[in-house]
């Protein structure tokens, strides 16, 4: 039985045992349900083996929503523990594990796939392409992300969760202070998901640079595509640093190297340095596509073209450059001198300038627009003031001298939630509502959608504004409890109430999806928002090949001009369409990667070697495979097009 001891939870509690049972029952229910309804074949043919960017997008979306739920439950537990002084709900170890997984899940397994979901679904449609440049690589990206996320998520029932924070700083994350396999999970799961993300970056960069419709020059691309291009460039240049840092961390933990140890010439703070060389660009990878979504939504519902298109593009390019020049502001207190801190202080403040340009451009787009407050627009309008508060407190944190006061307090926690929730999460929810009809053929209920937006905003303000005050009063982040005499109690209770209101907001979104599936009208046009860009020019549901005829573009808002100025988008006749074949290899490779990661986490060397061989066999098979895709005949295209037109 010694062998199995390593899989035991080092620090168990009844809640974890209950979760184990719940996970087991859910898996049995899913497997039984699939068998009972005879859906295995459907699942395999239509989803697991698909290389269609739209379906991959939807799978990313489902994963992101599931992870949002998991990260949200973590958040509620954290706030419940802090709601009252000297609370006994969680002990220190559980609190550490929960805030660590909350951070990793929300950033890497919720926000990232949410962005990937919208990018996958929207970008090829927006540039008039039939798929991404490397469809099978895209499927592999998804499965690597998914398996990485699942590997990370089983940590709390098998072997123990990571507990060194989402930043996992050494020496705390080293073997000496983190004895359980938790941090191995962190290193390996993020590594697997990160490789997937890196491949997505390469894939979308190539897609956007090479596969635009004829006539769509770079400066005629829709804003979301521009923001995706810039974000993917950042991915390609930032993620390798994470890959290397994680590999070094893994070797420190499993092979006894001394990269980040405190003796034998190791340099523990080098981890923090490398982590943030990746970590700061990462926040721009998240926020730029969010900005792109807001740009689309604001110009659609202000019924105006986007103000300052060129300055929007240039500000994003400048942000992308700056994002690599500011990382040391995450550790101003680490011990560098005034000169180093001043340099990074100045670059950090400078990044507020292009961001400000974007805020003003949105305001000028709204100015004199015929604003229509739909749910996505409501999110966008709530975003502008809320995000600006986060931006201003960011500039406060950027001042390195003052940062000695703010560092590692709740003030910082309030700041980054203040940019990420209104910035990224609101954008993703707005994008979800905006693109829902294109994805699923019906609209989400507007009334429920607006309720959710208001609940989230009010809950957000109640949850995070008090943290600015307690932070300035000295409440440290990551402390699992505090005494009553500190006086933090009442404000933390307000935070907890805010968190609960946000939870209600998310419940309303889930109910909205359920309600709309049951009652929403399926009789909608392909362009229900009266939008401006190419993704609305094709049918709903979008046919496999996206566009029967490749559109010809000669303005920034090609679809709007085709509606209002009579430009002709589709000039050519139907021709046979070349499409990629589905493949099971990405999914199988993902499964092998999962087993590989699991073996690595526990140091099971024989399965590790076998799975490594399996991965290389998959790649070799791909190299020797002759797969030329398939053609959709003209008759078939005609048939589909007639049917879809009839459905309108």
């Amino acid at each position, binding site marked *: 039985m010694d062998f199995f001891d390593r899989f035991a939870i080092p620090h168990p509690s009844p809640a974890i045992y209950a979760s184990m049972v719940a996970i087991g029952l859910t898996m049995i229910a899913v497997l039984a349900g699939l068998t009972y309804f005879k859906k295995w074949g459907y699942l395999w043919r239509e989803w697991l083996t698909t290389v269609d960017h739209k379906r991959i997008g939807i799978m990313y979306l489902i994963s992101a929503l599931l992870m949002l739920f998991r990260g949200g439950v973590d958040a509620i537990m954290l706030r419940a523990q802090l709601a009252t002084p000297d609370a006994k709900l969680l002990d220190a170890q559980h609190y550490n594990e929960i805030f660590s997984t909350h951070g990793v899940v929300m950033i890497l397994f919720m926000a990232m796939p949410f962005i990937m979901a919208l990018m996958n679904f929207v970008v090829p449609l927006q540039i008039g392409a039939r798929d991404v440049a490397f469809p099978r690589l895209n499927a592999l990206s998804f499965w690597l992300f998914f398996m990485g996320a699942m590997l990370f998520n089983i940590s709390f029932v098998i072997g123990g969760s990571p507990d060194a924070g989402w930043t996992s700083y050494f020496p705390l994350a080293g073997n000496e202070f983190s004895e359980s396999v938790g941090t191995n999970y962190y290193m390996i799961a993020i590594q697997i998901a990160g490789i997937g993300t890196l491949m997505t970056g390469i894939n979308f960069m190539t897609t956007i*640079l*090479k596969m635009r419709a004829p006539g769509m020059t770079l400066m005629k691309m829709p804003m979301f595509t521009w923001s995706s291009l810039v974000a993917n460039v950042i991915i390609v240049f930032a993620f390798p640093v994470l890959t290397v840092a994680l590999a070094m961390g893994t070797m420190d933990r499993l092979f006894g190297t001394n990269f980040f140890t405190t003796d034998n010439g190791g340099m523990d703070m080098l981890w923090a*340095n490398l982590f943030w*060389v990746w970590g700061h660009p990462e926040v721009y990878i998240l926020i730029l596509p969010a900005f792109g979504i807001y740009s689309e939504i604001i110009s659609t519902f202000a019924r105006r073209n986007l103000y300052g298109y060129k300055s929007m593009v240039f500000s994003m390019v400048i942000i992308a450059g700056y994002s690599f*020049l500011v990382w*040391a502001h995450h550790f101003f207190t680490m011990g560098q001198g005034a000169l180093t801190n001043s340099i990074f202080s100045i670059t950090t403040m400078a990044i507020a300038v292009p961001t400000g340009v974007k805020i003003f451009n949105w305001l000028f787009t709204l100015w004199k627009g015929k604003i229509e407050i739909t749910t996505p627009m409501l999110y966008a309008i709530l975003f502008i003031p809320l995000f600006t508060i986060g931006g201003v407190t960011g500039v406060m944190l950027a001042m390195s001298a003052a940062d000695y006061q703010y560092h590692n307090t709740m003030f910082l926690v309030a700041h980054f939630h203040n940019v990420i929730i209104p910035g990224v999460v609101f954008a993703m929810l707005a994008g979800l509502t905006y693109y829902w009809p294109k994805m699923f053929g019906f609209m989400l209920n507007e009334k429920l959608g607006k309720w959710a937006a208001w609940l989230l905003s009010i809950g957000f303000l109640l949850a995070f504004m008090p943290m600015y005050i307690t932070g300035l009063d000295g409440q440290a982040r990551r402390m699992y409890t505090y005494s009553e005499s500190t006086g933090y109690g009442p404000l933390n209770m307000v935070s907890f109430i805010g968190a609960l209101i946000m939870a209600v907001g998310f419940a309303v979104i889930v109910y909205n999806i359920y309600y709309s599936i049951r009652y929403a009208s399926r009789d909608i046009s392909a362009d229900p928002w009266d939008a401006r860009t190419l993704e609305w020019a094709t049918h709903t549901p979008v046919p496999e090949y996206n566009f029967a005829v490749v559109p010809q573009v000669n303005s920034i808002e090609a679809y709007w001009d085709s509606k209002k100025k009579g430009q002709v988008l589709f000039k050519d006749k139907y021709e046979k369409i070349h499409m990629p074949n589905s493949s099971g290899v990405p999914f199988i490779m993902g499964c092998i990667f999962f087993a590989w990661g699991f073996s690595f986490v526990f140091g099971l060397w024989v399965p590790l070697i076998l799975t490594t061989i399996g991965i290389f066999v998959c790649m070799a098979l791909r190299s020797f495979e002759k797969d030329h895709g398939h053609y959709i005949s003209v008759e078939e295209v005609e048939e589909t097009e007639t049917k879809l037109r009839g459905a309108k």
Partner: protein
Amino acid sequence: MKELFPAKQVMGFVFSLILTAVALLVYFMDMSFELGMTVLLVTAFIQAGLQLVVFMHAGESEDKAAIYTNVYYGLFIALVTIFGTLLCMIWGYI
């Protein structure tokens, strides 16, 4: 005959051999650590550039602009990361 002879590639090959030989000197000669590292870094960067331009045809397709922009951007970020790290961890550290 002149059009058929790949002069550029042959020259490139000879040059890359020379670079390799120079890099090998670091092993065979008794250099100081600083000098050795300088020689290695300089020859490595030239070698990488040579491979990219001459043998991987970076400048010979219609994507020339995109390829070079990427290379220069990557170079910029690599240098910023290395020198920024040195600044944080060694030069600026008290």
